[in-house]
């Protein structure tokens, strides 16, 4: 007993660290180590001599920052970034706008079939991205799409959705279809958390439903709007499934349409993991800068609003 009591202060001090060990070990093994390895690879390259056939013809050497300068001066990566900016400019506002609208509608009092509607809007999120893209791909191809069949019967013009500007709409549509439900649930959950007496007070003051939505609900769910915006930006920067799945269906999508597709192409088709590692690091840094930049801006605005 005395032994245990003497040990107690030691145990109390070290317990938090002991609790941290599992997470730390996992973090180091599966997060820090791979990132470190990617950083290492991004500074390496292979050097081939002569024909490069046979033993010893290929060595791995230090490349310095050559992979980075190559990636940054590669116009294809920049063009890919611009393309997904255009894509994101459609996806993010439309998806979050719809999510907010649906969440507000679901939150109104006299709604019937609320559970069913919520599930129906959420359901596409449960469908794997590749499957969704394949399904939409079928619907976009004029020769097999029922929509085009109906347009044809009605004598209406049939736009080519897999080319030029409409291609962005076609891709964005898949993301919106799949992502709206998830974001709606996030916003809806925080709407339900608003105390009911606030609405009661508002109604006593003569607020209409619309005014409640615009002046009370939206400002009060601002933090979850920030959160969903944050997730959407990251998802946009990482878009890969949809264009990769639609690519074989059209001449308009190149193998390097989005930055991540270029990373995939370099790593797994062109077999240049070093260049791919450098590009991955650049994309990660850009994603961090963009998303945390946005978070910081959003936070400082909220603080300003709170101090007023």
């Amino acid at each position, binding site marked *: 007993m005395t032994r245990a009591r003497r040990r107690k202060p030691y145990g109390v001090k070290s317990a938090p660290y002991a609790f941290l060990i599992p997470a730390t070990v996992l973090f180091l093994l599966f997060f820090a180590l791979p990132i470190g390895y990617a950083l290492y690879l991004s500074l390496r390259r292979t050097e081939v001599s*002569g024909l490069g056939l046979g033993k010893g013809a290929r060595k791995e050497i230090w490349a310095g920052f050559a992979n980075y300068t190559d990636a940054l001066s590669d116009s294809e990566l920049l063009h890919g970034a611009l393309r997904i900016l255009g894509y994101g400019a459609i996806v993010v506002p439309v998806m979050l706008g719809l999510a907010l609208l649906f969440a507000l509608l679901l939150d109104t009092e006299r709604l019937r079939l609320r559970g069913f509607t919520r599930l129906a809007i959420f359901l596409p999120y449960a469908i794997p991205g590749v499957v969704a893209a394949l399904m939409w791909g079928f619907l976009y191809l004029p020769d097999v799409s029922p929509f085009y069949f109906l347009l044809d019967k009605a004598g209406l013009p049939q736009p080519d959705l897999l080319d030029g500007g409409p291609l962005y709409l076609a891709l964005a549509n898949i993301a919106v279809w799949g992502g709206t439900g998830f974001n709606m649930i996030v916003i809806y959950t925080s709407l339900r958390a608003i105390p009911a007496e606030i609405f009661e007070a508002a109604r006593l003051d003569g607020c209409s439903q619309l005014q409640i939505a615009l002046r009370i609900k939206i400002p009060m769910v601002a933090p979850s709007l920030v959160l969903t915006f944050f997730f959407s930006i990251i998802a946009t920067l990482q878009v890969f499934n949809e264009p990769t799945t639609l690519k074989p269906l059209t001449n308009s999508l190149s193998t390097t349409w989005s930055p991540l597709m270029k990373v995939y192409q370099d790593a797994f088709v062109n*077999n240049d993991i070093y260049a791919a590692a450098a590009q991955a690091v650049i994309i990660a840094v850009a994603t961090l800068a963009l998303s945390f930049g946005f978070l910081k801006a959003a936070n400082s605005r909220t603080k300003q609003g709170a101090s007023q």
Partner: protein
Amino acid sequence: MKYRIVAASTAAVLAATALLTGCGSSDDDGSGDGPAASGPVSLTYWAWAPGLDKVADIWNKGEGKKAGITVTVKKQASGDDLVTKIITAAKAHKAPDLVQAEYQALPTLVSNDVLADISKEAGDAKGKFADGVWQQATLGSDALYALPQDSGPLMFYYRQDLFKQYGLSVPTTWDEFAETARALKKKAPDKDLTTFSSNDSGLFAGLAQQAGAQWWTTGGDKWKVAIDDPATQKVAGFWGGLVKEGAIDNQPMYTPAWNKALNTGKQIAWVSAVWAPGTLTTAAPDTAGKWAMAPLPQWTAGESVTGSWGGSSTAVTNDSKHKKAAAAFAKWLNTDSAALAALVKESGIYPAATAAQTGGALAKPPAYFANQPGFYTEAAKIAQGTAPAAWGPNVNVAYTAFKDNFAKAAKSRSDFAPALTAMQDATVADLKKQGFGVSE
């Protein structure tokens, strides 16, 4: 109490680490530090052809049992992904003993030092294959890096009934092919003879081979890249011209829309390889028995040259501890008549070994071509004229450049020449970047 928690969590961590390190090191298939060469040997074989495990079973129960060599097939995805996977495995010295590799991937694998030279063990099989096929496995050197398994000589497939209906005759030269496309457009403007597809570089490579292109050649210790040589320019110009004037379609193959076009007779011909019946069976099931096969149109009338689209080989890796045993299996698989018959039956391949290209399982035409009893006799005759292919260490880069640049050109129905130049430039730039010797 607290003490116990600390102890428990420490134990949990230890257990977790043991588990994690366990994952990393328990990868040995027994192919690595196996028993001595005299004892029983077990080999792993990475391959994608369907039914290969059944063919390996024949070996395991017969010849392999006698020699004490057991082969286990591990099913893989085909194509580019597998090449990367094998190279990665070889870096960790954990490559399987045997791999299925497409011909155009062989130089890439050799240049990454993945494949063993098996000329001593299997070099005597040379006479069983057409020269053009064998040369792809030796890369034109004295070494032998793989044994040819299947080949894909190019042919011309067409809808016999619709050709008759529109009064078209089967083209024997490419000029006639262009005339046929135009004649069809005149008679049925909403139909196309065929399409130029930018999503499979292999077909274009095969068409270029037919015209005499040698995309990668070596001189001294330098590679020479000739993707924009006159022969390929001729091919690119021909197809670009047809797309530009609207005589043929410009949409990619292997899409639901393409399947429908073949199935409904919107496209009435397809330049493809000997394996086309399999594709047509799934793409155009309603038109079985209405198609026929003819030799590929020629650049010079009266010739009988064709190119290859696809085809693969069996290679032994440098990581294998039992190269001799692996080479013996590879040789059996691709030259033994029982093995080849099983390959045709179980895997549905068209064997590269010339003796197996007629008779046996190939005595009857494919079910889809029941109307053409001499299908495989004709195919074997066409296969004899297979032009040699010349592959280099970065075919994947050239293929990607083809897809991107020709897709753009086909989409805008513009000249194909700049796309071909871009393909050549991308390939040369990549070789130089990696440090290969390149002659201008």
